[in-house]
């Protein structure tokens, strides 16, 4: 078999891993934030009174759910120069990741909104709450409880999807695994290390979600 697993062989490359992990993290966080905003917009579209706007929202979600993220990334990466923009790899990756994730966010938000009964809006109206007040004190807290768990899962999905940024020249963790693996020929070690990085990130999100949930939701509901 002639191959012995020796972690020591990749120690020299761990410095670059730090930088790569930071890229993975920032890529993910930016995309999560942006996709929430865009997704909220799409969710609002889908509840619009206009048939055209509703169809637009649905079309957006369907396109993002059925087209591979890789293809979307390539389109944005290669389309940039064509449109006269000079997009960095990182920017292209963030845009692609955000637009794709926004489709899923829209669905999560939509499910949260649907769960609110019409009577809630009526009672709030009857009591004289303004639209903004109704949203802030009555609707948002309820929606947040409903979407909390799926949101956590979507955050993890974005972290894992960030690995595709390696295909458009972003030096994040997956790219590190590739580069370090091919220069050192220690693919097993780089795989294990990369896997550990992603595992840690995902489990942190999971545990964070559970802990925060216990803090926020006093009723102690199970949020799995």
């Amino acid at each position: 078999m002639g191959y012995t697993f020796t972690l020591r062989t990749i120690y020299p490359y761990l410095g670059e891993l730090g930088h790569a992990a930071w890229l993975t993290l920032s890529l993910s966080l930016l995309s999560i934030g942006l996709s929430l905003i865009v997704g909220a917009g799409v969710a609002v579209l889908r509840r619009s009174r206009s048939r055209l706007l509703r169809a637009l929202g649905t079309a957006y979600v369907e396109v993002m759910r059925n087209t591979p993220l890789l293809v979307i990334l390539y389109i944005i990466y290669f389309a940039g120069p064509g449109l006269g923009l000079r997009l960095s790899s990182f920017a292209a990756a963030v845009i692609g990741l955000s637009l794709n994730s926004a489709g899923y966010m829209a669905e999560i938000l939509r499910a949260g909104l649907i769960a609110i009964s019409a009577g809630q809006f009526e009672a709030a109206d009857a009591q004289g709450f303004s639209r903004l007040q109704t949203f802030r004190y009555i609707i948002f807290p309820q929606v947040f409880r409903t979407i909390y768990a799926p949101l956590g899962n979507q955050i993890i999905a974005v972290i894992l999807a960030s690995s595709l940024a390696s295909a458009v020249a972003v030096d994040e963790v997956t790219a590190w695994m590739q580069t370090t693996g091919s220069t050192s020929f220690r693919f097993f070690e780089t795989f294990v290390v990369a896997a550990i990085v992603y595992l840690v990130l995902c489990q942190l999100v999971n545990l964070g979600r559970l802990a925060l949930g216990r803090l926020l939701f006093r009723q102690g509901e199970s949020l799995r």
Partner: protein
Amino acid sequence: MNPDWLSYGPLMLRAAGLTLWLSWLAMLIGALGGTGIAFLRTSRFRGLRLLALLYTEFFRSVPILIVMFFCYFGVPLVFGFDVSSFAAATIALALHASSTMSEVVRAGIESVGRGQWEAAQAAGMDRVQVMRYIIGPQAIRVVLPPSVGVFITTLKESSLASIIGFIELTKTGLLVRESTDGGLVPLLALAALYFIINYAISLVGGRLERRFHIGSRSDLVGAMG
């Protein structure tokens, strides 16, 4: 210069067929493997249950791309034998599909009420017979609709095979793009093809859902791919 786009049509369609073949194979292996893992998850032995749990948690917390890289580059290095890009892609896709499918199958089995087990066992059937004649058929109705979602996810993930050099639909699109001096048309055609295929499949899945009157567990199959 306006290249004759339509001449690339047959090439793209053949590549689409290859993508479907790759996805289908991975899905099949994944479904079988996933069913096995589901049984382990519900086994009487704590060790087996733990093993299955670790397996599922691992593949849900790791991007499929690094698994694919390891299968293609790592395995030959570590174990000495060559792995084709097709094989590496299939294995990686199957491993991921199996972990999702194990949850789907487990939910399907659990959805069949305890009363069914008891009635069948009271009639004298052993565990295997109960699964085969009573639980299985009922569980399948619950398992089928979300499986369609897993298949669509696998199909989207198959595009990653292009990165390790397997010439499926995405790679073909990229090659067409290169030989026509860059441009967006091949990429947009790629997107359109994937969309049409996946959307059509999701419609079939929708019909299955309605036929079996079961809602799909969309929280299980929302992988972004």
